[in-house]
């Protein structure tokens, strides 16, 4: 399945990408699994998305936990804790 993956703020800068398409094997269905795939890229990806790091995710523009389901065509965003207001 194909996901549109977005990065914001500090993570966008560190990872050096704002938006990409990520292809996952069919059957993978949780945000946590997308993160495993991204971490497997090594380098800054492994570092910034390490389990102890403080980041958040949204699936189709809704805040989502690591266990949230993902499907083909979903938009997944990964970003630091928000600091608006």
């Amino acid at each position, binding site marked *: 399945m194909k996901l549109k993956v977005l990065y914001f703020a500090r993570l966008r800068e560190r990872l050096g990408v704002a938006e990409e398409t990520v292809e996952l094997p069919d059957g993978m269905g949780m945000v946590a699994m997308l993160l495993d795939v991204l971490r497997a890229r090594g380098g800054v990806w492994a570092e910034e998305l390490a389990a102890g790091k403080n980041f958040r995710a949204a699936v189709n523009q*809704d805040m989502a936990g690591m266990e949230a389901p993902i499907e083909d065509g979903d938009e997944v965003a990964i970003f630091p804790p*928000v*600091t*608006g*207001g």
Partner: protein
Amino acid sequence: MKILVDDKDFDAGAEITALRAGNPQVGAVASFVGLVRDSNAGSNVDSMTLEHYPAMTQRALGAIVAKAGQRWALLDVTVIHRVGELHPGDQIVLVAVASSHRADAFAACEFIMDYLKTQAPFWKKEQTPEGPRWVEQRATDEQAAARWTE
């Protein structure tokens, strides 16, 4: 209900007036304006850039306001949040809540701000004399939002 994300400034007074205009059931308008300070976490702040996640922002703010509307008796709500480059003294955010009674207006206004601080996809990058830096979320912001679920 009015929810606006914009790079332009807003007129808080006009928004508050518009919120209650024509509804004589409104007995209370609580509002909050957040502003850029000239210092933060020990550094001077020359300017600030607010980034957001456009496809999600309006939706996230709408969900927060809807949640407030389920919890308190509200007559109308306005939320305006700016994005782009801002300077010390500039307005960042307005939350204004109209209700028949003050307790509902105050609680909902503070609730919306607390949730906005932890749920709405905005990020601040400050320009300081020591260089640019991304603002980190404060633990007190998570705590402020969490107390509404106690």
